[in-house]
């Protein structure tokens, strides 16, 4: 172990030139957003989750679950790219992988913050997840694996900061494995419910992993470009190559994800249960159609693809904007997926039920979403401020 004191470590990793008034204001702003946003979630514990959130018996899951999935999926993507760069090299992303590990931790924190106020009794979870585990439950595995992943990544990051390269490498691999398995279980939460034909099926866990590769690449580009924006510096050539690699990965996965989305939707129209087809209708021509065609397809897939082509993987600002749009598209895609799975009444045809239930998130749900974004933005800025030098160093192994 290193004998360096904590202050000595931070002196080596910190980026004091980022302590500008503008940066301070931005950091405090996002801290306030975090506290104010998550306070909306705390209200649920005071007035009742059933009062504060707009979920119903028929649609028990809403925007908080989808946003949890979005951050968790992004975290997985960041972690996988970082681990692959560390272990195999080969990509140019090695040089930016320390930042990716940090942002992976921060994204999963955003996910935990969101789901922490969504679950009605998280204190029971802390007890009974341990003393009464159900090994057939995807939720149990997902929670446990994400918990393990974040533990591994925190130790990995400590290894990076303190220069313990071997510890960082080994824990990084374990963290990435846990993240992939957790992501797979997250997909499995939805994919193994025959009651919900829109979710049920073997494709969904792979779809979630594809989404992780997409969101992870987009986040890698965006956060790295932002890191140099806030420094007011031009990227070094090596970092530029790293971002370019992420751009290539994003382009490839954009194609895969588009193909997967296309066939996923086609499959509902060639047969299978009516509930699945009606749910697909919600996206194609129903209440989620603007979300789907405008945000998921145009903003999240088509425009980023065009921007990537126009940027020729050289113009990093354009690539960062493409990355941002991909993340917006992915955020809405998770929302549409979660909502579409429940939007068609299970007993359609009885009680004069409409083809689609109505769900509009409450103002408090939007508040929690803002809180989650606050966590990630605050974490990003604090990371640059406290560990900025670590992020711009050469690889640690």
């Amino acid at each position, binding site marked *: 172990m290193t004998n360096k004191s904590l202050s000595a470590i931070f002196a080596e990793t910190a980026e004091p030139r980022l302590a500008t008034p503008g940066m301070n204001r931005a950091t405090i702003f996002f801290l306030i957003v975090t506290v104010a946003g998550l306070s909306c979630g705390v209200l649920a514990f005071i007035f009742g989750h059933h009062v504060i959130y707009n979920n119903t018996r*028929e649609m028990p*899951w809403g925007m908080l679950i989808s946003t949890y999935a979005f951050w968790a999926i992004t975290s997985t993507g960041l972690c996988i790219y970082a681990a692959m760069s560390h272990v195999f090299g080969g990509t140019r992303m090695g040089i930016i992988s320390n930042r990716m590990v940090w942002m992976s931790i921060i994204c999963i924190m955003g996910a935990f913050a969101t789901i922490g106020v969504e679950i009605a009794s998280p204190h029971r979870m802390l007890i009974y997840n341990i003393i009464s585990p*159900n090994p057939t439950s*995807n939720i149990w595995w997902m929670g446990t694996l994400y918990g393990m992943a974040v533990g591994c990544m925190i130790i990995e990051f400590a290894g990076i900061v303190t220069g313990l390269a071997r510890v960082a490498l080994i824990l990084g691999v374990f963290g990435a494995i846990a993240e992939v398995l957790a992501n797979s279980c997250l997909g499995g939460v939805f994919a193994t*419910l025959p009651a919900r034909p829109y979710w049920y099926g073997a494709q969904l866990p792979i779809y979630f992993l594809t989404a992780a590769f997409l969101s992870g690449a987009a986040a890698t580009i965006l956060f790295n470009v932002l890191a140099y924006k806030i420094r007011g510096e031009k990227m070094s050539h090596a970092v530029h190559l790293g971002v370019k690699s992420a751009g290539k990965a994003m382009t490839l996965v954009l194609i895969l994800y588009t193909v997967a989305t296309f066939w996923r939707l086609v499959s509902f129209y060639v047969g299978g249960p009516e509930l699945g087809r009606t749910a697909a209708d919600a996206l194609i021509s129903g209440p989620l159609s603007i979300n789907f065609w405008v945000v998921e397809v145009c903003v999240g897939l088509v425009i980023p693809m065009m921007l990537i082509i126009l940027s020729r993987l050289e113009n990093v600002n354009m690539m960062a904007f493409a990355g941002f749009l991909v993340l917006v598209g992915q955020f809405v895609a998770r929302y549409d997926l979660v909502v579409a799975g429940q939007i068609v009444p299970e*007993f359609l045809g009885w009680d004069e039920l409409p083809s689609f239930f109505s769900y509009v998130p409450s103002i408090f749900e939007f508040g929690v979403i803002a809180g989650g974004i606050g966590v990630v933005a605050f974490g990003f800025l604090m990371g640059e401020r406290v560990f900025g030098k670590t992020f711009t160093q050469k690889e640690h192994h």
Partner: protein
Amino acid sequence: MNIEDLEKEKNEGIENLPLQERRKFLQMGLAVTGVFLGGSVLSLTSVSHASDLNTDPDMDIPADDQYPYPIHYGMVMRQNRCIDCERCVEACKQTNHVPDGHGAYRTAIQERRTTENGSEKREFRPVLCNHCNRPPCVRVCPTKATYKDPDTGIVVMDYKKCIGCKTCMAACPYNARYFNHEKYAIDKCNFCIDTRLAEGKKETACAAACPARVRIFGDLKDKSTEIYRLLHTPDTKIWVLRPDTGALPNVFYMNA
């Protein structure tokens, strides 16, 4: 026996066959084609390891030892008898302290209007937890807060373990679960296991309250019960809700 010898035999006709034999033969043929459902649906849905690929008519009626629980509770809904008086709903609410509002109910009556030969037809259908043999809610619960009671097969809740993740609500094919804001846990029908069966009563509150005797509750294994008799009445069409989900429910529907 040689088929050529058989061809030389004189046709005996069916008039001399005992009635019992003729019925058995007819049932066997209809069960193979899927028209006859009396008994068949029961076997396909109430034995946890039953396979829905089983088309052998001899295998249709399960032996008593094939039931997974010592007492195997189920319910038959004689759907055409329901008049939507909702006394079952009220009895359930009172007996099981179901709170008001926020979608809280353990059982409900559904209504459907259809047109038949130019005139409007109203149908009522009682619904509740199906206490499935392959219950999706039980599989997905992270903390075993919901489980199959080992003695009765009833799907019950252990409220103190419920974290409120609502995965069981998403997993249920029957919309049978709700968030009980007083208990701050997910709640559902438990066939009155704690409020009536524990006191030695033989019926659930809803079944006892029904003036039209729509709901017949009992042990599926016990040959002396009405539910057993109903489910084993030949030529009765029996169906379950959403059989495609593979949940193997223990609530059966018929018109009788």
